[in-house]
């Protein structure tokens, strides 16, 4: 069942305060978090989070189209290191 709208999105309190502190400081440090269940809010856009996957922190640079999703969606807990093939990446 979906979460009731009146409750608003769930975000860990500490994570919210850390994000605010990072934004106010203007340093754009990586904010380490274990709270994979927290929802990505619009005020997180542009910040980089290190989301723990049970073993290490995966850097997650929040963009607009990630708002509404949970942090855990971008930090998989199971990982198969496949071949590189013709895959390419863009340095943003």
């Amino acid at each position, binding site marked *: 069942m979906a979460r009731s709208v009146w409750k608003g999105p769930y975000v860990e309190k500490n*994570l919210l305060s850390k994000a605010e*502190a990072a934004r106010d400081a203007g340093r754009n440090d*990586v904010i380490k978090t274990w709270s994979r269940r927290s929802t990505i809010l619009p005020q997180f856009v542009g910040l980089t989070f290190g989301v723990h996957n049970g073993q290490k922190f995966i850097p997650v640079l929040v963009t607009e189209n990630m708002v509404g999703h949970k942090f855990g969606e971008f930090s998989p807990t199971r990982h198969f290191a496949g071949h590189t093939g013709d895959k*390419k990446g863009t340095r*943003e």
Partner: protein
Amino acid sequence: MKSLGGKIVCLGRIVGSQGLEGLARLKSYTAKPEDIGAYGPLVDKKHNYRFNISVVRSSKKGVVAQIEGISSRTELEKFYGLDLYVDRSVLPELKDEEFYYSDLVGLLVNDIDGNFIGKVKSMENFGAGDIIEVETPNGERFMLPFTKKVVTEINLSAQNITIDNLKEFNDQGQESLGVNKNG
């Protein structure tokens, strides 16, 4: 067959056959599975065999392709498990700031002062942008976002990359933000 020269990139593997007519089931490592046949003839690692393949269809189990010169299942059986490679020079040119993962993996990583940090272990993308994984000489691994701010310079000819702002990704930078395990 002689070597094509230069670096080779693994694009797939022959995993089995489909039907009795010699169709091969391939595991494709390309971004789009059907592209395994888009880069011309494929070779094995020792360049003993050369395969001209045409993709018939792709499914959940992999790509089904016809290999030129193979018309029966029996002929194909000896190639089961064979990795298929293509010469790196065959891959198309990329735009600025675009890089093949295969070019980046294995590069040496230095910091902005020229100090050696480690090697690029792998490249990943979990949906939040490209990520570069670095392995230090003592076996520790850490991940960094593949951005201009962090990866300041990529020198493919010298086989190294330079990373900056590393301090932001280690624990020292976190203390000032009051990091504890509650968040």
